[in-house]
């Protein structure tokens, strides 16, 4: 309210409280932006810029072995890519690798979680042991499996195979066995993640609905199918989404175990992009492969998120 003296000194007093609030809010927004700016700039520099640069690079022919052919070629790399049988082969290897590892992780993780939920003693110790593979670097895991587990004659897996009467196998030399081996290694390392998430979700389910189901004469299998699975669905879908994204972009373990071989038997799309860029030094085409992988990952993730939202 004005004091009513009528002098020009009173002018600011007429600024409504609404205006004052707006000014204050603007100032606060500006201050918040200033605080956010460094993190935002770092994020732009480390994620958005490289991504845009990758897309930009993919429109060039950059061949370090033949630099005189370099130049802007538009979408030619993508046209070549669609006609490249090795691209389709690596994409199918990526799909097989991703689907197998994710299905195995969820199935084994859920099985372990159900088993541990039923344990009366030793739950803590089991969890501790189970989580160990996750904390190891995939490169270290790859080295350990290659040298200690899968080495013909000396590896533990081969030792067990010989003792089981299956004879010594060339685990990483045979295309099928190599593919199975890298799937097993990824599953071994990342199943504990699915196990921990599903165990936490299982532990959060109330006991009384299981008791109600027993009273309603549901068998153990019916309780699992009609109650546990639907109630775990959000957690399972979340695990599938997260593990799919990681499996599609897996690299280190396969790189250290097989390097994509024998031949291209375990060459997932990521590895093909790496080989194309840094072995064959065809940076432009390698970038196009990486962009293709990005597009595939986004499409699959979007589909999975749509599944998650459904129902």
């Amino acid at each position, binding site marked *: 309210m004005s004091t009513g003296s009528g002098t020009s000194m009173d002018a600011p007093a007429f600024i409504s409280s609404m205006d004052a609030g707006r000014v204050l809010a603007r100032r606060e927004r500006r201050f918040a932006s200033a605080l956010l700016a460094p993190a935002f700039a770092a994020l732009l520099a480390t994620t958005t810029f490289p991504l845009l640069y990758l897309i930009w690079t993919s429109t060039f022919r950059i061949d370090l072995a033949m630099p005189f052919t370099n130049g802007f070629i538009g979408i030619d790399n993508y046209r070549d890519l669609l006609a490249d049988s090795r691209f389709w082969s690596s994409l199918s290897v990526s799909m097989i690798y991703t689907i197998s590892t994710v299905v195995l992780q969820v199935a084994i993780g859920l099985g372990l979680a159900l088993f541990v939920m039923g344990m009366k003693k030793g739950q803590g110790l089991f969890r501790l042991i189970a989580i160990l593979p996750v904390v190891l670097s995939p490169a270290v895991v790859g080295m350990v499996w290659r040298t200690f587990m899968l080495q013909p004659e000396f590896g533990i897996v081969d030792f067990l195979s010989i003792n089981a009467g299956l004879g010594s196998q060339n685990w990483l030399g045979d295309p099928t066995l190599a593919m199975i081996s890298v799937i097993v290694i990824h599953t071994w390392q990342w199943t504990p993640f699915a196990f921990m998430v599903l165990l936490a979700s299982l532990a959060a389910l*109330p006991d*009384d*609905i299981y*008791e*109600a*189901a*027993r*009273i*309603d*004469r*549901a*068998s153990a299998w*019916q309780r699992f199918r*009609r*109650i546990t699975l*639907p*109630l775990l*669905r959000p957690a399972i879908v979340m695990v599938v989404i997260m593990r799919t994204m990681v499996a599609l972009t897996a690299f280190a373990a396969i790189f250290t175990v097989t390097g994509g071989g024998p031949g291209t038997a375990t060459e997932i799309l990521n590895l093909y992009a790496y080989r194309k860029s840094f072995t064959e030094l065809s940076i432009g085409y390698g970038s196009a492969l990486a962009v293709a992988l990005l597009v595939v990952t986004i499409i699959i993730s979007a589909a999975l998120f749509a599944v998650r939202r459904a129902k």
Partner: protein
Amino acid sequence: MNGRGHVRFEQIVKMHGNFKALKGVDFDIRPAEFFALLGPSGSGKSTTLRILAGLDAPTSGRVMIDGKDVTSADARDRDVAMVFQSYALYPHMTVFENIAFPLEMAKMAKADIAPAVQDAARKVKIEHLLERKPGQLSGGQQQRCALARAIVRRASLFLLDEPLSNLDAKLRLETRAELKKLQRSLGVTAVYVTHDQEEAMTLADRMAVFMAGEIEQIGTPAEVFTRPNSLDVAAFIGSPPMNLIPARLAGGNVIIAGQPLATTRADLSDRNVTVGIRPSALRIGPTGLPAKVDLVEDLGDSAVLDLDCAGTRVRARINHDDIPPENSSVFVTARPQDIHLFDPDTRKRI
């Protein structure tokens, strides 16, 4: 009445580690009876119900349903339905699916399930909520859904574990009456666990009063109220609780605050006793125990008086028309048949 639902508990003991939750419980429930298990928290009534449902196994003893020994049978192999305190509705299923679940598990033909669900929902007045999920229902509606799920299968035994405790006071009273009517119309044996003695008194045909893992008394609500057989039951049943006053029995009279009150037990020799008198049995009159009115709690239709009888605190529930003012002096008395005598050592009724 279907003649099914005869329950017999024989010497049931339940141990939790070294703790004896049930210390040899025996009782019989007749077909179509509404039987309440009443007792304070931790007295063993819910454990008894869980053993009857087959959710827990007893450490020793026998559970018989309709003459069959079901002690080692799992819940799914007993013909029982249950309403849980938390309702235990399946959160991912609609009300229809919740009610239909026991029928599906019983492998009922699909064509028969929908009419059965509709019928059960109509009985508890939730037929308009069948498409909703439990999370979209109020507490009272959830409770009705749980009831419908329990009655839809027409089991021989209907178990209720404090089903009204999560409802507000008004809804609890309404549902209580409906529950009784429902049980009568279905003619099914109902076993009802509660710590609320008013609920047990109003609903049950007979009740068992549990104290510290043992049954203190079994009887009709009227029997338990008018002839409590121990100090613990006397103190637990009734609101306000029974006045329990240490006194001397001499010549058939009990001496309280130096004044004699006649009892019906002239046959007993002189001894120390604990006298039990219900607040509603105390009357204000021209003679009796002199008392000072410390406090008046006016309940509208009646009043509860806190009285000081020469140092002994006594509560009386009297008619609204006769309320004496606070700090006034009155005389209180009780009819001989309203005076209960208990042994202070064994705590049992004399």
